[in-house]
Every structure is written in C-alpha cells, then in structure tokens.
C-alpha cells in the first residue's frame, strides 16, 4: 500500500521510560484527587495576591504555546504554500493535539468553580468584552479543529478511505480555521495582561503584548517541530529530516530577531531605561530572558551552525525555554499585587504539572507507535 508514506512505528509500548512517565502521572492523579476533595489551597500555594500559579501559566499558557507546532507548520505549508515541509505536518499536529487537549484539561482542575464551566457557552452569561471569554471559546474551538485536522490519521488506520476522501474536500476550511483560531487566542493570551496596568512591571507591560505573545508562540511552535523531529528520528532511527529543518531555521531565526529588536525599541521609545538597569529581580529576569532569546537566534541565523544537528537541537531547547521564561515573567514575576504577597509553587503543585507533561509524552508515544503519524521507512 504505497498510497501514504506515513507509517505507524510499531514496537513495544511498555518500555522502561514509559513506566516512569506512568508513575509520574499517577502521582499527579493522587494530588488532583486531593485538590478535588479539599480545595485548591490543599495542594497549591495560590493565595489572595497570586490567584494564578503554574497550573495556569505553565500548563495552559506555556502548554498551548508548545502546542503551536501544528499552527506554525500549517502557516508555512498551507498559507505560504511551502509543500516541502509537509512531512513535518502530522507530528506537529499531534504535538498540538496533546498540548491543547491537556491544556484544556488543566483549565478544568484549575477552575475554582469547574462545575459551572458550561456557563461559558450560555449566551446569557456571555461577556464579549472579556479577553478570557474570547480565549476560552477560541481554545475550545481550536481543540475541536485539531482533532478534525488529525482525524485522517485515524481514518487511515481504520481503513476508512471513503470517509477520509470526503473529509479532504472540506479540509481547507478546517485548515484556515486552524490558522485563524491560534492567531486569535495566542495573541489574546497576551491581551489578558493589558488590564493589569501598573500592577505589571513596565519591562513587560506594553500595548504590544498581544503581538509579542503571537510572535513568540509561532517561534515556539517551530521550536517544538525541530525538537520533535530530531528526537524522533534519532530514537527510532528514521531518515533524518535535517535538510528540511535547516531550511526552516532561518525563518525562525529572523522571526526571533524581529521580536527581540522590536521589543527593545518599544521599551526605549517609552523611556523604560531605568527599570532595565535597576538592581532587582525584574531587571535580572528581563536580561536573562533577552539572553535566552538571543542565543537560539544566533544559532538559527548562522548558516554554519544551523546545519549541525546538535546545535539545532540546542537552539530548539533554548528557544522553548526563552518563550516559557517570557510567559512566566510576564504573568508571575512582573506582577506585583502589593500588600506583601508572594508565590512559589508547592511541591504537589509542581508534581501535577510534571504529571500532565508525562501524560502528554505517553500519549504521544502511543500515537506514533500505533498510528500512521511519521514519515517512516519506505512503504513495504
């Protein structure tokens, strides 16, 4: 059957690393049970000054940015019509599928009144001026879109070629939505902070927040694609995708460079020089963040470095770290509720976040082993 070069990897599921991830996940389940029985305060360090912690910032805000691989690749493959990147599309979508689905799940256990969740869908409660309202609807819609985008893979596996053909006819609409929705909500995740005013350090507060969040989310999307494909091709000894990747990298590099330069220009234009050089945590985190953004930018732009698989892998890691740091800084470090409040996640809180990530990796492994996701060895 040479109709598709996408192949399930096959192989044993219950490997040792898999069991370790399963254990981490079980620990998270234990703490989540505690949370549902005794309330959010029984497992987290959330408080009246810091009502949002790592479950929101890492699991949802960073988690969905990690899930932007599908979005970033769709932008390239279908909107800029770069068909040569097509082999990276399915694994990227799969990453997105789990990034978003689990981010959505994390929302449920983080919500303080989760049993009212469906109110978001009731028109008489709708509050369109709320950025949160837009984010919630967009993310829900996008999770649906991701599952539809990914469904040909299931249909292929089940041998339902007819259904797959039918779906294909409308796929372009789904693909367009798959670009529009993340553009909207990834920028809006930045807009969430626009209402914070002087509660946020001027190093992060700017009317450009939506654009900064969008640019970094796209960059992180490419970062995860590079990471995923390097890891997978090595672990499963697949034909290397290095050639495609090294073509992709300058695009990502220039995107990052644009972000860093524009951000600095914006800060200077508004005269926020003093806080940059203040001797405090904000200034330190700001420069650390800039540094971690600049390092991968250099690797990805330099023609000599970006052909080296190790450097590329490092660049992808740094890029994801930079985007994550930016989000943690903007939502937690830059934010000062006053009144002496402080926040650092508790161990159980961290374990839940780690467990969610473990679940994500486990599901990813199951899917690539059982479903035709990856461009495999030549068809038999």
């Amino acid at each position, binding site marked *: 059957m040479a109709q598709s070069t996408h192949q399930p990897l096959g192989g044993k599921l219950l490997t040792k690393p898999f069991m370790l991830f399963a254990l981490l996940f079980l620990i998270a389940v234990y703490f989540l049970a505690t949370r549902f029985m005794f309330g959010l305060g029984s497992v987290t360090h959330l408080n009246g000054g810091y009502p949002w912690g790592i479950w929101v910032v890492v699991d949802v805000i960073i988690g969905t940015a990690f899930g932007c691989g599908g979005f970033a690749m769709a932008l390239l493959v279908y909107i800029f019509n770069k068909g040569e990147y097509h082999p990276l599309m399915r694994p990227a979508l799969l990453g997105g599928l789990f990034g978003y689905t689990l981010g959505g799940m994390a929302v449920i256990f983080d919500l303080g009144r989760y049993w009212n969740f469906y109110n978001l869908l009731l028109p008489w409660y709708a509050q369109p001026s709320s950025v949160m309202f837009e984010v919630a609807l967009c993310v829900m819609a996008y999770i649906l879109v991701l599952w539809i985008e990914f469904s040909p893979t299931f249909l292929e596996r089940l041998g339902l070629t007819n259904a797959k053909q039918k779906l294909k006819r409308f796929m372009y609409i789904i693909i367009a939505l798959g670009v529009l929705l993340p553009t909207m909500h990834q920028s809006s995740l930045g807009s969430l902070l626009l209402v914070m005013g002087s509660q946020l350090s001027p190093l992060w507060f700017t009317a*450009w927040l939506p654009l900064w969040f969008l640019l970094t989310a796209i960059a992180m999307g490419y970062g995860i694609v590079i990471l995923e494909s390097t890891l997978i091709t090595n672990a499963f000894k697949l034909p290397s995708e290095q050639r495609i990747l090294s073509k992709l990298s300058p695009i990502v590099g220039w995107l990052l460079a644009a972000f860093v330069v524009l951000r600095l220009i914006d800060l200077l234009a508004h005269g926020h020089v003093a806080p940059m050089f203040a001797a405090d945590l904000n200034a330190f985190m700001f420069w650390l963040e800039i540094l971690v953004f600049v390092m991968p930018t250099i690797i990805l732009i330099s023609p000599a470095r970006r052909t080296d698989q190790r450097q590329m892998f490092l660049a992808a890691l740094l890029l994801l770290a930079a985007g994550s740091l930016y989000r943690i800084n903007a939502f937690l470090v830059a934010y000062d509720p*006053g009144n002496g409040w402080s926040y650092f996640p508790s161990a159980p809180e961290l374990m839940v976040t780690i467990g969610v990530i473990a679940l994500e990796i486990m599901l990813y492994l199951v899917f690539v082993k059982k479903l035709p996701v990856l461009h495999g060895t030549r068809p038999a």
Partner: protein
Amino acid sequence: MDKSRRRFIQGAAGAIAGAVAPVESTQALRRENKQLPPNALGMLYDSTLCIGCRACVTACKEANDVPVEQPAHLREWNVGVWDSGEDISGKTLNTIRVYTDGTKERKDREENGYAFIKRHCLHCVDPSCVSVCPVSAMLKDADTGIVTHNPDACIGCRYCVYGCPFGVPQYQFDETFGKIAKCEFCEHLQKKGEIPACCDVCPTGASLFGRVDDLQQEAEQRLSKQPGDRYEFPRGRLGDDRPTHEAAIPEYQSHVYGVKEAGGTQIRYLTGVPHQKLGLPKLPDESYASLSEGVQHTLYKGMIAPLALLGGLIYLARRSTKQHEDEE
C-alpha cells in the same frame, strides 16, 4: 509565491500594521472611561475619625454570614469570638488595617505615628472585575453603581482576583467548593431600606454611607475647614437625623482618594497619612479596562477583521491543498 498570494499576504501584513500602528500612542487605543451612574451610592471613609474598634468588621461578618477568622499565630491569646483577620480574604469582606511608624505616638501622623485604613471593594466607576469576567458574574448596577457578584454564573477562573487594582475579590482556596468573596455593599440590606452594616454600626461616622455626589461635597467641606475647627461629623447615612459626632477638624492630606483613581470609584477616602503609606495604590486617571477593552474592540469590532482574515486564509489553504493533491 504566486501573485495573488503575495498580494494577500502583503495586504494582511498592511492591515495588521495599520491596526497596531496607533499603539505608538497607547492613549489612542483606549476607549473612554465609563461615567458615574446617575444615583451612585458610596461611602466616605475618614481615617482620622476611625478608632480601630472593628465594630464594622464584626457587623459585616454577621450581615453577610461569613465566619470569624483567626490566623494561627494570633489564636493563642485570642480565645473566643474576636476576629483578627489581617486583610480581606475569602472569608473577610472588609477589615481595618493599621499603619505604624517609629514610636507610634500620634494618631494620623506619618512619622512616629499610626493610622487606620479600611479595606473593601471600592465599587469602581469602570471596574476591571466586571470587564474581565468571562461569564458576567461581576455586575455593576446601572443606577446605583454597586458591584455585585453572582456565584451561580462564576466559573472560578480568578481573573477578577488577578485583575482588580485594589486586590479586592478573593477566592476561598481552603474550601472544596470555593466561592469568590467580595463586598457587595450589603445590597441585600439596602433592598430592605437599610444601610450597609459597617456604616450602620460605626460609632464615629468614620464609615459614612450616602450618595456619591453628597459624600464628595461633604469631603470637600471637611477639607475647606481649618485644622482645629469644631465640626459636626454625620454618622450612618449622610442626610439622616442621627445624632452627629462632634470633634476637631484634623490635618488632612489634601487629596481625596477614590475620585479619579483608575477611572474613579464610589468610595472616598480622607486620611491624615499619605495614601500610599496606607496601602492605597497610586493609580492613573484612566481606567485599566479602557485600554484592554479598547484594544480588544479595535481588533474584534463586529468580527470584521477576523472574518476577513478567515476569508483570505480559506482561499490560500484551498489553493495549497489543491496543488498538493495534484502533486500526489
């Protein structure tokens, strides 16, 4: 890249640039601040009159059926029903905090003095909490301007907690089925013709209930007197016939806090100690909601921009998928 694709992408880039260009001056993106409702009700809290008796805190707990709070480190010497919550919380809708400096000798002096400050919702004119709530669980009355909360709508996202510039709404983290707690200005008592419990019990008139216009006048009148002048301070509801509390006019800070802060509030604060020392944050005259809603409305007005973008994306995706099919 073919021509039409290039044209669309250039067009889209142009549109995005056009949409974000005004960001240059953040001011241009703001919508107007909202206006004080016609029959706005509020409170004048005069820190110099407050004796820190916390009768208002106890009355609030009774009126709103919230439990007494005792932090662990104070529990030992504080046996019984004395409430000693240190700030508003999921179980404390109002509280009195103390400012102290040096020898704490004189009341209402910044240096070597002490002062009281009351904490609760300021019933903002253009409230962030109402603007950010995704399910309309925070509501501002169109007539009285009182900001209430509807727990049946609330999903517990805590964006209001994060967004309120005064740190007012609080989620009950220690409850299995926690709620958002926030002063609703005893709306249930007002419906029965009564006044908020804190203003009702206050022995000195430090917490005074009334129409915002009248309270503003009252505040200005106090400021216009000379320190030391005898003055009849009204108690309970401004304009009622309760006996007044006669005392000397103190040395006030000249600024009335709450008039313009973050687009204005329905609470007025008069103090002897600078406001920021008492934990009242320095805030701009523009409401915070005016910027976030301004940006949001610019980008999403009538959903025109997103729909136009979707149209372009559909067109491009269609061509690409067709082309890929032909190649396959």
